[in-house]
């Protein structure tokens, strides 16, 4: 697809534009989280516990823009720094998941037979255990750490990429240009990389955006059970868990991280849907 047409299509899809703007803003905010945060995210202020949100003006005179929590920590700073942790996990997780899942799916689709059987049974096995159940078991047994969190993401999400790439490769495998490449003596790896992969990227790209949002949600769920990002490090999930006790009296402790979480995932889902409109106009989903 020509660049010009692509850009015109992007601008014509409101979902893509909204998603793109949200995602770029959130990525920038999380990259500069330490600079943007008005206070140290772990600084306690026992005299200023449960300060209600004081509004934007407080940002410049050392107040609590979005209020403070049970230890007097600034919620805005914690949400900002939490975004950095969440997005880093989601970013690394998505790359690992996409690479592993796609490679396995492509091999399954291209070689078929036993390889295909093994990979397909493996996807069924990971489907048989819900991601949250598996996440809890792994995190509890091997200890909650960022690397184990990413391991959970890989185990629970690789199957989506594997299935999509397998089906796409199955369709591509017997097309003329693939057979021509094979007839000219191309090895399996060469054919996969130069002939098949460029033709299966569109659905994978769309899946990528959805996976990113999904990983953020899983991380928030595990952190909510204190099995993800560990205190005192802030994460949207453990902030919601911490604020739940004070829900009746100090609701902002929960609402602020909740809204941050929702907007972020909404942004990635919008982007995914928008990409589908832009890259694959035939599909309606």
């Amino acid at each position, binding site marked *: 697809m020509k660049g010009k047409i692509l850009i015109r299509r992007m601008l014509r899809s409101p979902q893509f534009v909204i998603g793109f703007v949200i995602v770029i803003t959130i990525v920038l905010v999380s990259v500069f989280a330490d600079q943007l945060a008005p206070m140290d995210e772990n600084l306690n202020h026992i005299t200023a516990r449960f300060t209600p949100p004081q509004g934007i003006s407080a940002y410049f005179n050392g107040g609590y823009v979005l209020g403070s929590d049970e230890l007097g920590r600034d919620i805005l700073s914690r949400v900002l720094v939490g975004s950095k942790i969440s997005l880093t996990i989601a970013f690394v997780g998505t790359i690992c998941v996409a690479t592993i899942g796609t490679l396995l799916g492509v091999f399954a689709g291209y070689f078929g037979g036993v390889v295909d059987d093994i990979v397909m049974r493996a996807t069924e096995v990971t489907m048989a255990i819900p991601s*949250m159940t598996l996440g*809890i*078991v792994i995190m509890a047994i091997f200890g909650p750490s960022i690397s184990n969190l990413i391991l959970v993401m890989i185990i629970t999400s690789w199957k989506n990429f594997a299935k999509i790439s397998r089906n796409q490769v199955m369709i591509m495998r017997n097309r003329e240009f693939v057979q021509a490449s094979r007839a000219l003596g191309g090895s399996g790896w060469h054919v996969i990389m130069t002939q098949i992969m460029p033709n299966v990227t569109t659905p994978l790209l769309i899946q990528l955006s959805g996976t990113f949002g999904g990983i953020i949600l899983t991380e928030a769920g595990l952190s909510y059970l204190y099995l993800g990002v560990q205190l005192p490090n802030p994460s949207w*999930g453990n902030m*919601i868990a911490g604020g*739940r006790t004070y829900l009746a009296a100090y*609701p902002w402790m929960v609402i602020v991280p*909740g809204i941050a979480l929702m907007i972020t*995932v909404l942004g990635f889902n919008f982007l995914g849907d928008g990409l589908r409109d832009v890259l694959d106009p035939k599909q309606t989903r």
Partner: protein
Amino acid sequence: MVKFFAKRILCLLLVVWIVSVLAFVMMRLAPGDAAVMALPDYASEAQIAAMRVKLGLDKPYITQYLIYLGDLLRGDLGTSVLYEKPCLDVIMERLPATLSVTIVCSIMVLIISIPLGIIAGVNKGGPIDFFAVLFALLGQSMSVVWICVLLLLLCSVKHNWLPSMGYNGLFDVKYLIMPAIAMGYKMCAGMVRMGRSGMIDVLSEDYITCAYARGMSRFEVNCKYAFKNSIIPVITLFGMDVAAMLAGAVIIETTFTIPGIGSMLVKAVSNRDYPLTQSTLVVTAAMFAVVNLVVDIVNAFIDRRMKLN
């Protein structure tokens, strides 16, 4: 048809077996000595050694595995360290609560999502479609945690509509409404999207045009032809979600303190009750297999093409 189901059952049994192997391996990989974990801190060396023998940890891994597999085939899932009861009994005690939430949630989801998805698909681009897409997108973007908290804030804190926690059997529905909404919204979102896109795809097929050409009314075409064919992926998705719910919605059960399988699992893992954790994984996989088989049977009834193969 018989061959298809025989193959499916074999596949699903294979999946359950692999999960049981993985659960076994994972529990052996876990750091720490299971015998030490099972005893209080002041246990003597002799007591620990006795516990090792009792748990069968003194034997080589292969022997341990064969004993485990033998017990599993006889339906014995081992004894829970935490509850000091057979694991299967513990799980069965917790199943009714999880099952009640699943039932209320499933009914709610089916009533809302199927009509909404279908109507949105038929009226693509209309106001109902816009609402359905927004509803689904929001549902997929909200964390279950966030939905739980919002519901609590609205229904228990601001207005005293529903009790914020507890469980009192299937028929005391007021305890189950909030958990069911929290669990069901995401499910609903997925099913609405799936139903809508399925309907749009099917309505562009040639046989729909053909049905109109034969003079059928719009209602008849939508109900008789399009609905039947677009519902199959929705049922498959519904089955997967129900299987996941039966494994215990951990976040919801801990938030609303429902004594179900999910909250039991959290308790089991935090107390390092390895036999119970292991059995929960195996039972979860078995439930997944059963639900999947049911889904396959239902789909075979709806879809004639599957019978022909």
